[in-house]
């Protein structure tokens, strides 16, 4: 179950990025995303678990590059979400490999996939909301201030939760 979800996530992420790049006319890049997807899957089955972090980084950089060049934000967002899911499921599959044969991994898999789906949906929903809702009258200085405030708040929240 987890492996199928992992494969689908990787394909979702890379295919979204490839589509976004293709739509923008960057026809040389999609093959690299397909190569990344293939490498990621090979790395997972060969138990090179570190590769998933590198792949996530690459996908986020690719999405950021696409956003910078004005490619479709939705496809880029889907790429990030796919990469995030792939990264999470790859680590979860690694953790499951430590389980003993008689451990009840089925219910853990179901629970995890459910939670991750909620996280992905929530993240994607919020991101799409932020893309489509725009305040035209907000000055740049105010926006920067809000972002800094958000970053500070986020940091405080994380520190608080860690405690």
């Amino acid at each position, binding site marked *: 179950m987890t492996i199928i979800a992992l494969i689908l996530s990787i394909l979702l992420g890379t295919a979204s990025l490839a589509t976004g790049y293709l739509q923008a006319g960057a026809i040389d890049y999609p093959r690299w995303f397909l190569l990344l997807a293939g490498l990621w899957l090979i790395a997972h089955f060969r138990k090179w678990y570190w590769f998933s972090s590198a792949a996530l980084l690459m996908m986020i950089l690719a999405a950021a590059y696409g956003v910078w060049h004005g490619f479709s934000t939705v496809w880029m967002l889907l790429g990030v979400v796919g990469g995030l899911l792939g990264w999470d499921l790859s680590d979860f599959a690694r953790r499951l490999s430590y389980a003993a044969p008689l451990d009840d991994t089925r219910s853990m898999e179901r629970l995890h996939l459910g939670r991750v789906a909620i996280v992905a949906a929530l993240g994607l929903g919020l991101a799409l909301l932020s893309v489509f809702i725009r305040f035209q009258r907000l000055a740049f200085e105010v926006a920067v201030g809000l972002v*800094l405030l958000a970053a500070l708040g986020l940091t405080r929240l994380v520190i608080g939760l860690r405690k």
Partner: protein
Amino acid sequence: MSRSLLLSLLTYGLLFAGIATVHGEFLALALPLVTYLLLGYLQAPEKIRLEAARQLSAERASPNSNVDVTLTVTNRGSNLEEVLLEDILPSGLTIRSDPAPPLRTSRHLVRLAKGESYTFAYTVSGPRGGYVFEALEAQVNDHLAVRRSRVRVEAQGRLFILPPVTRLRHIAIRPRRTRVYAGMIPARAGGTGTEFFGVREYQPGDSPHSINWRASAHYTDTLYANEYQQERVADVGIVLDGRLRTNEFARGHSLFEYSVQAAASIADALLSQGNRVGLLLYASYLGWTLPGYGKIQRERILHALANAQTGDSEVFSDLEHIPTRLFPPESQIVFVSPLTDDDLKPLIQLRAQGYDVLVVSPNPVKFELSYLPSSNPGIDLAGRVIHMERLLLLQRLQRANIHVLDWDVREPFDVLVKRKLGRSPVWLRAIGR
């Protein structure tokens, strides 16, 4: 790099990229990561409090026999979504994987609700040794594994894998001095017993059965009575040679296990006879087990032997430093060692000090030849030369009135002891053999 750190760095990277480039879409890209981080932290367990209890199917076992380890882990804290439990095995022990299902391992991935317990079991085996189980490791994380905590959960347990003990019927030793209690060692003193000791003048109070009529017939004025040899317990010090240079051979072969087995069997037999037995391990250090009697002493010695290891030390490289003051004067010393040429002088000195010395020597020459290729003429010749040197060494020891048991380890130890140290049958003794 931890998962939360990686996600945080990526998030901040996107936030600052958004600020620097004045592109709101960068912030949108960061939102799924932020959601993931926040939900991960929100789901993190509040309080991790695990307790564990360990049960072993046996606390004493023989080498390579199976011992079941059962662990029960109870969650006394908040709900734990994902706990990876792994028992920390003492080095030397291995998990026996039974090919038939269910497979039993020391690592389990479980969910533990508040107050819930989880029990798992697995089977271990290992070579001789003393093993201490201290704790198991639990890796606790939320479902998204944003926060990971590792905790050690104390679960004590001890397992002694004792050396094999061969039952020996009787070990005939004759130290000069014995203790006052009745035992099985001939005491070089007349009194009550079973073995004939001598004839003396009949004393009032002697049993009429003890009168030696043949001797009394020679003299008309007095009667003579038989005297029997007293049998008492003795002090025995077993010295186990654990020096690396005498026990270890090429390709990882070692005679030490045989030496340990011999020491354990001898200690068991001598304690069964009621003697007071102590053990000295002579290796990189001196491991002294105080002398004592009975079953408790047997346990002490077996535990000491379970932990005995070979070792190398400049100080104890030869036998000059055997602390003789640990052994009562004129007592019995049993020295278990493959022997080297340098050992001759210290052993003769021990004998000269009045100790009765018995050397049990696993034969290193035959041991080495048993695994070397026999077709090689060079090895054959070298083996013969070394064998002659060893024979010479053993002869010198015997000439110094040291009893030597040369043990070819392919032969069972009890067979050798029965042949060399066993009590001969009465009819054989009667004809003086």
